[in-house]
C-alpha cells in the first residue's frame, strides 16, 4: 500500500511540473484567482475556451426622478469582460470586470449544453451569478445579483464576444468620437429677461468638451513636452493620460473615461491595475500629464498665474 502511495505521489509531481509549464501561458501574473490546490491533480479541459470575453452588460435600472422623486425604470449599459482562466471537469475559474470592479468567480461548465454557471464570491454587494452559454465565439446569457435589494439593477443580460487582448501603443481614439463629456455637467445660473421686463434666473448645465488634441498626442509613443500640453484643458490632459491606461486594458471606474474609450473597438477592459505594465516612456508622460492636470485644476480660474 505504501509503495503504491509513493509511486502515486511521484507521478503526481511529474504531472504537476508539466502542468505548471503549460498553465503559465494562460495565467497572467495579475490573476489573483488561480486555484493552486486543485491544479495539482485535476486535469484541465477545454483550454480552447480560455480567454477574454468582452461586450455589453445591460438591464433595467431603478431611477429616481430628480424633480418629483418618483421612481421609474431606466436602462443601464456597461461594458463587461469575463476572463475564463481555467476549466476542469467540475470547476471553472476566472474573473469578471465591470467599471473598475474586478471580481473572481468560480463555477461549473456543462459540456453538453456549452453553458457556464459562474458565481462571484458573495462578499461584495455587487456580486452575483452569471448563467451564460457559449456558441462559437460568443458568450451570451444573464446575470443576477445575490442581493436583489442592494443594487440598482439586480438582473442584467450579457452579450459578449471572445477577444484577444493585445497592447498596442498605436491605438488612439477614433477621429469621429464624441468629444462631449456627458457625465460631468457643470451647473450654472443663467438669467433671462422676458417681454414684460421681468428678470428670472434659472439653473442650467454645461458639459465639458474635449479638443482635437486628444487625437494627436499619443503618450504611449512620443515623449511629451511641457510645450505640447500648455494650452490644453483639464479634460484633454486627462484623456491623453488615460489613453495610456486604456491601451493596457485598464477598467475605468470613472464614467467619463469609460464613455470615451468604449467608443473604440480596441478598448478591452481586463484589469483594475496596470501600473506595472507601463513602459518607461509612458510613466514619464503620465507623471508630466498628472502635473499639468493638477496645475489646470488649481490654477486655471484662480487669482494667480
Amino acid at each position, binding site marked *: 500500500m505504501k509503495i503504491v502511495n509513493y509511486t502515486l505521489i511521484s507521478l503526481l509531481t511529474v504531472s504537476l511540473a508539466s502542468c505548471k509549464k503549460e498553465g503559465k501561458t494562460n495565467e497572467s501574473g495579475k490573476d489573483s484567482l488561480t486555484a493552486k490546490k486543485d491544479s495539482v491533480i485535476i486535469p484541465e479541459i477545454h483550454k480552447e475556451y480560455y480567454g477574454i470575453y468582452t461586450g455589453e452588460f445591460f438591464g433595467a435600472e431603478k431611477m429616481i426622478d430628480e424633480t418629483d422623486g418618483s421612481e421609474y425604470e431606466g436602462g443601464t449599459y456597461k461594458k463587461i469582460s469575463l476572463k475564463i482562466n481555467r476549466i476542469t471537469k467540475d470547476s471553472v475559474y476566472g474573473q469578471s470586470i465591470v467599471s473598475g470592479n474586478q471580481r473572481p468567480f468560480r463555477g461549473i461548465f456543462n459540456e453538453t449544453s456549452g453553458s457556464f454557471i459562474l458565481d462571484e464570491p458573495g462578499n461584495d454587494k455587487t456580486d452575483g451569478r452569471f448563467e451564460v452559454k457559449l456558441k462559437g465565439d460568443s458568450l451570451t446569457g444573464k446575470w443576477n445579483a445575490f442581493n436583489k435589494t442592494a443594487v440598482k439593477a439586480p438582473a442584467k443580460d450579457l452579450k459578449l464576444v471572445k477577444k484577444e487582448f493585445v497592447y498596442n501603443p498605436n491605438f488612439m481614439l477614433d477621429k469621429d468620437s464624441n468629444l462631449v463629456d456627458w457625465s460631468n455637467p457643470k451647473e450654472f445660473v443663467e438669467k433671462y429677461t422676458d417681454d414684460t421686463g421681468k428678470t428670472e434666473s434659472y439653473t442650467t448645465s454645461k458639459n465639458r468638451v474635449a*479638443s482635437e488634441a486628444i487625437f494627436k498626442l499619443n503618450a504611449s509613443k512620443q515623449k511629451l*513636452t*511641457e*510645450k505640447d*500640453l*500648455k*494650452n*490644453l*484643458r483639464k479634460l484633454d490632459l486627462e484623456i491623453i493620460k488615460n489613453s495610456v491606461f486604456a491601451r493596457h486594458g485598464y477598467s475605468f471606474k470613472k464614467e467619463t473615461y469609460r464613455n470615451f474609450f468604449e467608443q473604440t473597438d480596441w478598448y478591452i477592459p481586463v484589469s483594475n491595475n496596470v501600473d506595472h505594465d507601463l513602459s518607461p516612456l509612458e510613466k514619464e508622460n503620465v507623471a508630466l500629464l498628472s*502635473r*499639468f492636470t*493638477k*496645475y*489646470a485644476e*488649481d*490654477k*486655471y*480660474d*484662480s*487669482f*494667480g*498665474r
Partner: protein
Amino acid sequence: MLSAKRNISRLSKILLITGFGYFFWLMLKITLEYIPFNPNVSFLMIKQTEVEQKPEYLYFFYTHVYTSIFILLSGFLAILRKDFGVKNFHKNMGKIYIFLILILAAPSGIYMGFFANGGILSKVSFVILGILWWCSTFKAYRLALQRKFKDHKQWMWRSFAFTLSAITLRMWKVIIVYLFHPDPMDVYQIIAWAGWVPNILIIEYLITKKQI
C-alpha cells in the same frame, strides 16, 4: 459743502487702502506657496523645462517672487506720502522700493520675460513691461535726487502703475476665465498685455488731465 467733499475723499482713501490690503493679502498667499523652497510647485509645475535646462532660471525666479511682495508693500506705503511720525519714512520706503526694483525685481523679470508662457506675444509684452518698469523707476529716482519733486511724483505714479500690473494681470485672468473660458495660454497672451497697458493709460490720463 467743503466737509462733504473732504468726507468723500476720505471715504475713497479708505476704500483704496482696504482694496490694496485685500489684493496684497492675495499676493502674499501666492508668495507663500513658494515657501518652503520647492522647485516643483504652483507656477513652476508647468515650468520644469526651464528649471531643468536653464540652471540660472530658478535664481531669477525666486529673486523676482521674494522681492516683489516687499516692492508692493514699500511702494504702497511710500505713495501715501506721509511719514506717520517716523522720521524719513517716505524716503526710506522709497529707497527700498527703488533699489529692489532696479537691482533685483526688474532685471529678473526681464530675464523671465524671455521664457514666458504663451509664445512670442506674451514674451514681447513682459520684456517691454520689465524695461519700462526699470526705466520709469530709475527716472523717478534721478528726479528725487535732483529735488524735482513734481516730476518725481509723476514718474513714481508710472512706476507704480507697472508694479500694480502684478495684481491687475491676475484680476483680468479671473474675469476673462469667468466670462469666456478660453484655453489657458490664450488667456495668458491676453493678460500679458491687459495687465499693464490699461494701467499706464489711466496714469497718463490722470497726469495730463488731472495734473496729479
